[in-house]
Structure formats: C-alpha cells, structure tokens
C-alpha cells in the first residue's frame, strides 16, 4: 500500500515534482555561483591591490610641485612608508583618436597619459604583471577595451594643431585606482621617451602625490596632517577606502542580485513542495487514515514521504553544483577582467559547495515541518469522510444561495480561492514575488533616468554645465567666459560658482579640508534634504556626507578658517551630493581664487543646446562643456544600460516564472479536480463556464498579489535604492514612478500572461469525461 501511494504520488504529480527538482537545481547553481563571485571578488581585489602596491592616499594637483619639499615632509612624518610623485599629461578626449575615431568629444572622463611608476602604484596588464612599454606603444584602460572592443595592434593617435603622435596598442591597463567606470579618471601608459616628447606639446600636466602608509588604519590622521602641511593640494584627494568600495561596487551588486534570485527560486521550490505535500495529504487522506487504522505509525508513513523529498533535495543540489563547476568562469568573467585572478584559496572551492548544500538543508527542514501534518490525520475521520473537510471560512457564509449579484462562475471561482486558500498560497506568493521582481528595477530605472535625479547628484538642473579645472590664467578665462555669456542673447540665465578648498574644524577639534562651492545660490540650486540654501555671508549648507561626518545639523554652528581667521557659520541646509566623493559644502562667500579647485558655470538657453555646445567648444579652450543629458549619460550611462538590461531580464524571468508556475499549478489543480469537473460537465455545465471559474481563480489571486506586490515594491524598493546610493552620498532617494509603466503596463502584461497561460493549461477540461467521475 505504501509503495502504491508513493507511485501514485509520483505519477500524478510528475511535472510539478520535476519542477521542484529544477528549481532546487537552479537555486543551488546560482547560490554556488553568487557566493563564489563574492569570495573571488574579495580575493581578487585584495590581490590586485597587493600586486599594484596601491597607494593609501593620493592627492591630485594641477600646477607645479616642489619635489624636495614633499620628500622632506614625508621623511619627517612617521606615518609615511613610501612616497612618490607621478607626472600625468591630461589630454582632452577630442584630441585622442582610437582607430581614427575621436575618443570622446565632451567626455567627463579625465584622460591622462603616464609612464609606469617606479616604486609603487603600478599599472598592471591583464596578467597582473607590471606593464613595460616600448617607444611607439601604448597600454589602454580596460574601460576603453570594453567600450570600443579593442584588441592589441589597434592604434591610438593624439594630435592638435601643431603636434601629432601615433601609438600601437600593446596591452590593456588594469588600474587598481581607476578601473571602475564610476571613477572619472583613466590612465594610458606610454614609454618614458614618448612621454617626454608629448610634454609641453599637448595637454596640461598634473601630478599625483601618492603615499603608502605604515599603518593604513591611520589614514584619517594622515589626511589631516597632509591638509595642514601646506603641500600642494590643487585638486581632490582620495584614499584607499574609496578604491576598494568602487572596485567592489558593481560586481558586488551583481553577486548580491544573483544570490537574491537564488533565494527567490528556493522559495518557489519550497512553495511547490508545500503544494505537493498538501495535495498528497488531501488525496491520500483516506489511505493514510486506513494505514494508521491498521496500526502503521504516523512517523513511519512520514519517513517514506520524507525520503522521497530528501532524495529530490540532494540530487537537485548536487546537480546544480555540478553544472556550476563548468559554468564557474561565466560568473567570474567580469571580475577576472577588471580585477584579475588571485591564486585560488581553499575557501573559493569550499564555500560554493557549502552554500549550495544549505539549499538542500533548507528544503529538507521545510519538508519535515510540513509533513508533521500527517500526525493530525485521524483514522476514523479519514475512513468515514474520505475528504479533508477543513477550511478557514465557514462555507455557509459564502454560499452560492446567498450570491445575488455576481455571475455564478465568477462567484464559484472566488469562493474556491477563499475556501482552499492554502492550496493557492503558492500561486499567491509567486505572483507577489514576480510583481516585485518587475516593479523594483522598473522604478529604479525610471528614477535614475528622470531629469530630477541630477538633483540627488548635487548638480543643479540646467541646459549646459561648464567645468573649468585649474590651469594657468584660469581666473581670466573664467571672467572672459562670464562676460561673453552675459552678452550672448541666446543665454537665458547663467550662474557662476567657484569651488575652493577651505579648512574646517571637525568634531574632534581638528582641522580638515572641505570643498566649498561659493556663489549666488538663488539660481541653479539643488534639492535640499532639509533647510535651504545659504543667503547670508555667515551661512553654510553641508552635503549629506559632510553633515553626518561633522555631526552637524541645521542651526548648528561650524568653524571655517577663512583668510587665517576662524569664522563661525550657521548650517542652514543639507543637500545630497554624489559627486567628488560626496563631501562638500555651499556658502555665500566671496570667491577665493587663490585656493580655487574648479569653476562651474550653469547656463540655461533659449536656443539649440547642441549647437551652442559646439560654438562654446570652439571658443573656450581647456573647458569641459557638457549638456546635462550628456552628463547623465556618461556618469550614469553604464549604470542605466546595466539597469535596462536587468529590467528586461527581470521582466523575462518574471514572465517565465509566472508562466511555469501558473501552468504547473493549474494542471495539477485540474488533475485534482477532475471528478468535480466531470460532474459539472455531466449535469450540463459548459466548458466555457468551467473555464471562467478557473480564470477567475487565477486572476483573483493575481490581482490581489499585484496589489500587495506593488505596495511592498514601492516601500522596500525605495529603501533598497537608498541603501545602495547612500554608499555614494545620497541618503534619501524618492522613487519616481512612471504610473503608466508600473501601474498599468506591468499589471496588464502579467494579467495577459496569466490569462493566456491559464487558458492553455486548462484546455484538458475538454477531455474530462464521465469516466473521470468514477476515479473518485
């Protein structure tokens, strides 16, 4: 009898049992892959940093430096292990041609030509070896290899009116500092002789003043010492924490998503399993009761079923792990390309196996819990009634005889869902999950794409942004541009801002550097998290990261050193900024040209933006001129593109999951309801009427699920995005929802899939005949 039940169980539910197996397998596969990504990423980044001898602190500086002064200071400082000054030639994208195509016309990337460093901060090739370059050769950042599909042997030309130089690509640069596309500087490596030839002919020279510390943990102490040293600091300073964060961000997120999908699949597998077990109990209620009646212990019966589920869990997991082994490289492709491969650690081999096995463990524990219900079956009740009559609702309160308005078939569909909700939970939860999977990336994408998003980036909305970095005579150029714009009839309004480095007294009473943007903030303002822009001379607004690091809130006072005097300023507002590391301030101070780091002019036009950009580019040298859309496209372009792919993938995955689960569920349900359907048909209920009942069931569950799924997606999704972006300096992101896509199109697509899948899956109703009644 036991064997008979098992055989019956497997045969009747062979499709859904197979589905459980597949889901467990995929879940184990992705879990192994995702965990391997995380561990490999961590190992590779560490290994890359070690090989490249990454600096712990880097100060960018435009202008000349006094090597001896820096060396002397370093020797006196007990924190410094090694110090190095590297010269870089910064060349505008419009003067670089890769395979005869301009590199990038109005790029936000700072493209620099360097030679290999001598003592640390090495630029590595794809084999993590220190690059050495002969004359006429060049090594190009991986970023461009990806963007332009470059191969060694391709050519790079730099030229301006008087100067031209040709290079052949030898290899690609894996740059521990500047690899990630979120970092807007990229380094090309050339030979020393070529470097000397280029110098003073093209571009402008910039320095990287790099330090390695004896104890990296004392980085903030060192940063302070440097900022007070009086050493060159015309440019931003960055430290190794940022390198690590940015190097891990993209792949870390992808790994997290892979693991998340694995967990979702696991949940779906568990739901299917629960569904199978419930059906089994319902169908075999009588047999199980009889077995109990003739004295077989419940635990013995349970063991038989459990052994089956343990078998499925283990074979599924092992299967998943076995597919993972050859597919391993696929997960790691991007990581290996950008960060290289570290020697294999034991953990890299064992962790994926362990995480995959946890999937099996979860499934087994879950089966044990659900199978407990076997204990509750009473032999007498089972033999007498044959069916499990329990229900959450009192059947009479939801009786057909009291239905005065609804179509009878719709009513019966609704009633069945409410009566047997336990069975429908699988469908319900899957629909909620898929709604979530669709809506969250859709909302993310819409938020990042929207023009309002720039305000989170710390940039005011405008048509054109001009960005001037320090060069000789910059102040005059700045004034010239302002005057020109003031006389240009196409310019509606302009706002000029100077960002200079000031010193501020931090929480511990120490002096710290801070970039303060000065100007008139009544126009071209950003969104404030709290408070408003500074109007008076003694007012200041802090970026979110500055305010949390300084622990200052609105109304608090901060001390700034201006012209060697401490001045007390009142915090009037806090805004979000994800540019330049997110630490900044705004104040209505007179511009400090002495310490100015960069200049920005925001312009609104009443004419064609692209034309204007061309005009200004021809007029103003050494000025980055970008339209806001272009700015977004370049800084967030990669992210948007990835997110676009992710959204499409999410919709496809969700669609497939909906299709699979809906059809599995309905096929199983129809098989289970065969006798009832046969009775209905025999007394004259039409096939259409029965179909309406089943479509109502699926749709009712779906609509309810979409409702709940959308609400949770809006709430949780916003928090999720906030967490991700808070790494970059934005603490509050308001999800911008496109109601047509999120509230109309995506539910409509889901409804369409569900209705058509339902119709397809319940077609077997046609074949149910009188003979099927006798089965019961």
């Amino acid at each position, binding site marked *: 009898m036991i064997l008979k039940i098992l055989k019956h169980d497997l045969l009747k539910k062979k499709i859904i049992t197979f589905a459980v197996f597949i889901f467990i397998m995929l879940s184990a596969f992705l879990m192994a892959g995702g965990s391997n990504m995380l561990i490999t990423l961590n190992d590779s980044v560490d290994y890359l940093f070690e090989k490249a001898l990454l600096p712990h602190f880097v100060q960018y500086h435009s202008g000349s430096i006094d090597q001896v002064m820096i060396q002397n200071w370093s020797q006196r400082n007990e924190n410094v292990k090694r110090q190095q000054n590297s010269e870089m030639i910064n060349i505008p994208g419009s003067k670089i041609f890769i395979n005869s195509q301009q590199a990038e016309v109005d790029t936000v990337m700072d493209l620099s030509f360097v030679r290999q460093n001598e003592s640390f901060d090495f630029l590595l090739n794809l084999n993590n070896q220190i690059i050495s370059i002969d004359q006429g050769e060049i090594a190009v950042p991986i970023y461009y290899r990806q963007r332009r599909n470059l191969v060694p042997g391709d050519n790079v030309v730099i030229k301006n009116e008087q100067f031209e130089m040709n290079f052949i690509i030898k290899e690609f640069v894996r740059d521990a500092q500047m690899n990630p596309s979120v970092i807007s500087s990229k380094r090309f490596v050339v030979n020393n002789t070529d470097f000397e030839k280029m110098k003073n002919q093209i571009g402008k020279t910039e320095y990287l003043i790099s330090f390695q510390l004896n104890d990296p943990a004392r980085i903030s102490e060192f940063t302070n010492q440097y900022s007070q040293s009086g050493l060159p600091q015309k440019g931003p300073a960055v430290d190794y924490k940022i390198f690590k964060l940015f190097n891990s961000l993209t792949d870390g997120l992808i790994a997290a998503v892979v693991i998340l999908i694995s967990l979702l699949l696991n949940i779906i597998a568990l739901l299917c399993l629960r569904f199978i077990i419930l059906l089994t109990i319902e169908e075999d209620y009588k047999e199980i009761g009889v077995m109990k009646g003739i004295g077989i212990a419940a635990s013995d019966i349970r063991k038989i079923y459990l052994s089956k589920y343990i078998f499925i869990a283990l074979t599924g997991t092992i299967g998943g792990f076995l597919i993972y082994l050859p597919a391993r490289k696929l997960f790691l492709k991007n990581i290996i390309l950008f960060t290289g491969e570290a020697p294999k650690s034991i953990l890299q081999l064992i962790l994926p196996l362990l995480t995959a096995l946890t999937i099996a463990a979860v499934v087994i524990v879950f089966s044990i819990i659900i199978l407990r219900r076997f204990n509750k079956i009473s032999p007498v009740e089972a033999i007498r009634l044959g069916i499990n009559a329990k229900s959450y609702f009192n059947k009479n309160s939801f009786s057909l*005889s009291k239905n005065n308005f609804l179509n009878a078939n719709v009513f019966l569909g609704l009633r069945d869902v409410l009566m047997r909700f336990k069975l429908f939970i699988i469908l319900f939860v899957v629909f909620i999950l898929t709604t979530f999977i669709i809506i969250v990336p859709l909302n993310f994408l819409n938020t990042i794409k929207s023009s309002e998003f720039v305000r989170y980036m710390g940039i005011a909305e405008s048509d054109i942004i001009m960005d001037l970095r320090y060069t000789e005579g910059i102040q005059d150029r700045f004034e010239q541009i302002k005057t020109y714009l003031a006389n240009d009839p196409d310019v509606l309004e302009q706002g000029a801002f100077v960002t200079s480095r000031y010193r501020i007294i931090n929480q511990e009473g120490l002096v710290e550097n801070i970039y303060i943007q000065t100007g008139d903030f009544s126009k071209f303002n950003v969104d404030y998290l709290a408070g408003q822009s500074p109007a008076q001379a003694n007012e200041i607004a802090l970026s979110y990261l500055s305010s949390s690091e300084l622990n200052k809130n609105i109304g608090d006072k901060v001390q700034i050193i201006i012209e060697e005097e401490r001045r007390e300023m009142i915090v009037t507002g806090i805004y979000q900024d994800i540019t330049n590391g997110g630490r900044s301030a705004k104040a209505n101070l007179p511009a400090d040209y002495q310490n100015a780091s960069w200049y920005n002019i925001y312009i609104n036009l009443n004419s064609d933006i692209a034309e204007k950009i061309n005009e200004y580019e021809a007029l103003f040298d050494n000025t980055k001129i970008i339209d806001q859309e272009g700015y977004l496209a370049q800084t967030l372009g990669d992210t948007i593109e990835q997110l676009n792919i992710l959204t499409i993938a999410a919709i496809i995955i969700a669609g497939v999951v909906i299709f699979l689960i809906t059809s599995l569920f309905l096929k199983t349900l129809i098989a289970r309801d065969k006798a009832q359907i046969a009775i209905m048909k*025999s*007394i004259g*209920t*039409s096939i*259409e*009427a029965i179909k309406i009942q089943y479509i109502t069931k699926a749709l009712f569950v779906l609509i309810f699920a979409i409702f709940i799924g959308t609400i949770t997606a809006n709430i949780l999704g916003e928090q999720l995005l906030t967490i991700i972006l808070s790494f970059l300096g934005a603490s509050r992101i308001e999800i911008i929802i496109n109601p047509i896509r999120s509230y109309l199109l995506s539910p409509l697509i889901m409804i369409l899939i569900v209705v058509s899948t339902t119709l397809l899956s319940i077609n077997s109703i046609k074949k149910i*005949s009188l003979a099927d009644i006798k089965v019961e």
Partner: protein
Amino acid sequence: MREILKAENLSKDYLINKKKFNVLRNINISINVGDFVSVMGPSGSGKSTLLYNVSGMDKMSSGEVVFQGEKLSELSEKKLSGLRLKKMGFVFQQINLLNNLGILDNIIFPAQMEGSQDRKKVKQRAVALMKKIGIIELAENEITQASGGQLQRAAICRALINEPEILFADEPTGALNSKSAKEVMDVFHTINKEGTTVMIVTHDIRVASHSSRVIFMKDGNIIGEKVLGELKDLDIELKDREGKLSKWLLDLGF
C-alpha cells in the same frame, strides 16, 4: 402522441486492452412526452450506459439519438451541455454531488449555471423541492454531514431544479429505505403527472410498477418490453401492476 426521445440502432462499445466490448447493441427505442419508462435488467447489462448515451453525456459509437427532433450526434459540445442543463435532469447511481458545495448550493447550482432565472425564485423552488422530498432540515449542511439516502434525495432535487422536460434517474431509490423510496416515487409520479417525461433504471419491482412502460435489458440488448399503461390511482392499482410485472420478469428469467 408526441415523441421526445428516440434511439435508432444505438451502439456503444468500449476498447479494453484492444478488445472491443459491445455494451449496447443496436438499441431502438422511442419515448413519448409524458411517458414513464423503467429500465430493468441484470447488473452489467448496460442500463446506465443507455441512460448516459441517450442523454448525450457519453458519445455513442454508432447509431443515432434524436431528442426533440434534433440529432445528438450533430450537436456541438456546447449545445449538448445546454440541452442537459435546461431540458434534462439526471440522477446518478453514484450520486455525484459536488463535494465543495453545501447541500442547498448543490441543488441550486444548475439554476445558477443556466443564469437567466430570478435567483430568489430559484431558492424558493429549491426549498419547496427539499420540503417535498423530506430533506429540508439539511439545507445548510455540508455533503459530509448527510447520509447516503439523504444525498440521493438531494441529487434528485438538483435534477429537478431547472424543471426539465425529461428526467433520467439511475437507481434513484437504491440507497433508500422503503419509506423514503416511497416518498421519492411519489415525487416522480407527481412530476410525471405534471407532464415531465421520466426514464429510470431500477432493480425494484415496486418502483418499476409506477411506470407506464418497462424495458428489459440483457447483454446490451433490449429483450422485452411490457406496457403497463398510465398509473391513475396510486393506492388502488399499484399491487395489481406489481403482480403483472413480476410474472413477466420471471418469464424473462430475472
């Protein structure tokens, strides 16, 4: 007399392990409006199969069934189920109530499926039927909370709810004690008097003696028919008809 149902050379065979079993062989029968036909015969002779085939519930293998002038073999699945829903009532040997609905819901189910009727009136009719057949106290019950005989009677109410023109009943009294059986037969007698044609399968001579014609089946053939004529007075004629019938059945070897 107007004909309501006719079977011409009706045959039904089942394929079991590639062997053909002729369950019905060239059945010819004609039933008029107002007839009360009983089908008798040994177990396995094809009585139920006959009911399934003349009601269009099962697909015949060959021959034809004509219901109210329409050839069933030519009707679509949809038309057929419409006929069964509106014009025919069916009581199954195995009862076949829907087990996720309560007793009352099972009874009004066909009326709600039909869709055009006033729901209040349907409910009133259901209550009246249940009263007449003696199960009114079960209206609120689940089908698990009733005995086999009670369920049989609920199934009869379901068959009658749409006021069919012909009622098919397969052993409607099989699960009933003699008192309930009599109540059921009284109901059948009444609806037949009111104009509904009745065709029932039974083993019980007392039940069969209510009918105007008795057909005897064996091995898929109709091997005899006894015309008893219309039953006018239940109390006086019944004994006499029973006697005639049992003699005839004895001759046929029943």
